């Protein structure tokens, strides 16, 4: 494990504004520095610094044996990472797009997720699989998917999705330090700036968003803890990643006093925060980009129904992607944007 460091008050720590890529790069840099067992592997992550620049400069700083390119083989990337972890390293493999994680799925589901359990703790897989995910970038079928539900269904995996540069850094540091395997999905639509869902208006950079104020140095955000983005009384919005920003924009525009919760970690989920909010508001809207049927929203909806039933004043609403492969030209017809969210809010509020 890493060396002890005296607690730093983030209020006093010097900050600067970073976009999400820079925040992720900063987290990786800090963990490479702190823990000699952290290694970064993946396609194009080495000399080139990654197709999204997340690992830029790290190979030059830490050397080729700690940050290196891999063959184009997701099952090899994850399988080798499991073996490295069994040796005692703390690998941070990158899967270039979440859409391409499937060849590594057997290694993740059958191996990484179960290694601690099946060996009764003799062997563990403290790996953090980073992967850009989500749509809104004209990525078509294989550069837009949100496969988080495939991972939340697997016992033994943690699934983490940040929504701001500040959280991306703190959550990634926590994920790397965590002794369980973590799937860390990075919403690529918001790498360079928050996205409000209005695809036809100019994008806003992170510099104008409070979530881009990132402390220097080491800090972590505990896994399993949600963030209340905005307090409110009218309804509770449960979302993560890009959809946090879309929800914020739509609800502000509609003038609805919503409580917006960024789940940040899907497994283990922060149910205490969710329950407290829904029991206060009596209404719940679940939003995700992923397809609807058996998506993570179904789990959220069931949990809220089971635990907040007598507080609910309306059925739990789900706003999701449609049950189709992610289309190219019809992206903005598919994306769960302002119109779909707005209609759901209206139904929830009985308008």
């Amino acid at each position, binding site marked *: 494990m890493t060396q002890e460091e005296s607690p730093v008050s983030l209020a006093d720590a010097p900050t600067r504004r970073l976009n999400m890529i820079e925040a992720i790069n900063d987290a990786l840099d800090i963990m490479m520095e702190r823990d000699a067992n952290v*290694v970064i592997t993946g396609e194009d992550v080495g000399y080139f610094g990654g197709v999204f620049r997340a690992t830029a400069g790290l190979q030059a700083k830490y050397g080729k*044996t*700690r940050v290196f390119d*891999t*063959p184009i*083989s997701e*099952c*090899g990337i994850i*399988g*080798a*990472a*499991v*073996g*490295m*972890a*069994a*040796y*005692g*390293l703390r*690998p941070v493999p990158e899967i270039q797009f979440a859409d391409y994680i499937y*060849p590594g799925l*057997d*290694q993740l589901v*059958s*191996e990484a997720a*179960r*290694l*601690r*359990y*099946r*060996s*009764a*703790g*003799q*062997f*563990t897989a403290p790996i953090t699989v980073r992967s850009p995910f989500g749509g809104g970038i004209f990525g078509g079928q294989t550069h837009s998917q949100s496969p988080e539900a495939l991972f939340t269904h697997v*016992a*033994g995996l*943690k699934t983490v999705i940040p929504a701001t540069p500040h959280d991306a850094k703190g959550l990634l540091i926590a994920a790397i330090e*965590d*002794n*369980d395997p973590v799937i860390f999905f990075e919403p690529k639509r918001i790498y360079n700036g928050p996205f409000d869902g209005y695809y036809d208006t100019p994008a806003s950079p992170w510099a104008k968003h409070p979530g881009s104020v990132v402390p220097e140095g080491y800090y972590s955000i505990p896994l*399993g803890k949600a963030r209340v983005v905005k307090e409110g009384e009218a309804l509770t919005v449960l979302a993560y990643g890009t959809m946090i920003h879309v929800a914020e924009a739509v609800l502000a525009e509609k003038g609805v006093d919503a409580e917006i919760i960024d789940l940040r970690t899907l*497994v*283990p*989920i922060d*149910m*205490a925060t969710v329950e407290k909010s829904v029991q206060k508001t009596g209404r719940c809207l679940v939003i995700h980009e992923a397809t609807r049927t058996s998506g993570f929203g179904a789990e959220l909806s069931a949990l809220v129904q089971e635990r907040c039933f007598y507080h609910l004043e309306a059925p739990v609403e789900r706003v999701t992607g449609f049950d189709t492969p992610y289309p190219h030209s019809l992206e903005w017809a598919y994306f769960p944007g302002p119109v779909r969210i707005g209609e759901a809010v209206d139904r929830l509020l009985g308008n």
Partner: protein
Amino acid sequence: MAEEPRNPVRKRGNLPPLALHVPEPKHRPGDAVDYSDLVIPPAGAQPRPDESCAAEETYPLCTDLVRVLDDEGRAVGPWDPRLDAETLRRMLRTMALTRAFDDRMYRAQRQGKTSFYMKCTGEEAVAIAAAFALADDDMVFPSYRQQGILVARGYPLVEMINQIYSNRADRLKGRQLPIMYSAKDYGFFSISGNLTTQYPQAVGWAMASAIKGDTRIATSFIGEGSTAEGDFHAAMTFATVYNAPVVLNVVNNQWAISSFSGIAGAERTTFAARAIGYGMAGIRVDGNDALAVFAAVRWAADRARANKGPTLIEHFTYRAEGHSTSDDPSSYRSAQESVEWPLGDPIARLKNHLIALGEWSEEQQAEMDRAVAEEVKAASKEAEKSGILGHGLHHPFKTMFEDVFEELPWHLEEQAEQAIRERRVKWPDWKE
């Protein structure tokens, strides 16, 4: 311009229609066995290149068969590892002990003491001679048929049986199917039911050892059927790209449950020959010749330890018994196959070698067989004191939820409480 089709259909004359080739084994149940087309080169005839040679120099060894023990039980040729008699006797005893263990555990399954077992009969030399050729701190990523490695490394038989019986003393807390051992202290990686997943993991472990500047190497074992998995390709690619210090073993025992090796691709080339396409050294070895197995694994281990890269070793052997206690091989192959297997029995061949050296006798062999059977029996009785499968619930219910994660999250705490509530209804007399 557009009058002529761009690629006119050529006249095909009297070519036959296309035909799918589905490989078939030579012998099915009831067939007389004919091994006459199996090329078994004489022992001692295979050249032994230096461990530091270029990978492509090993190509002749990939299609040949490295053999040391000849028909008279003599060790011959450049691959003779020149082991002392004491080491040979220890190796022989380990093989006999493993066979006795298999026999007793097979019967235990038939007696209902456990749900499942898999023997390695006829393949003892592969795992055990390999274990003798490796350092004890080299990490092994085994399949389910290398129990001989645990025996060779001195892992207590009682612990193995505890795992097979899923009893109170089972270190894996009754979570794993019998024989899916895990013994980190003995350099024995947790066995998975998913085939070939351990291959890229072994390569990753070896890469990690190289990253840290360690001196330990990794080795892994799969069957020939498992070479068809995508993980095989990934492991071979990663091993050569990073020159990983790993010894990759393919135990070609001719059968993957009911599918003969041809279904895995054996008809047109050997499994060892696959190494060459990746730029890896390869050796095909007589898997029933303990000295040849020892020599090949030692060669590959020395090569890996000297930073000269990975090796693929095909151990050519025969799965003498059923795939598992759930399998009946008489329904898909000739019973004569294992009897007439031309490479014989690995234990008998090593025994004959020691006798030829004047270092052993049939009497000593008989005495040793009695002793190992007694040792297994005693271990079995000892393990049974901690219970057998079906005799009660051996582990506290809370343990079912532990080790999913390092710490129990709230949802597993809740589910553990549910399981414990149910326990009082389902098994009111049972005490945790």
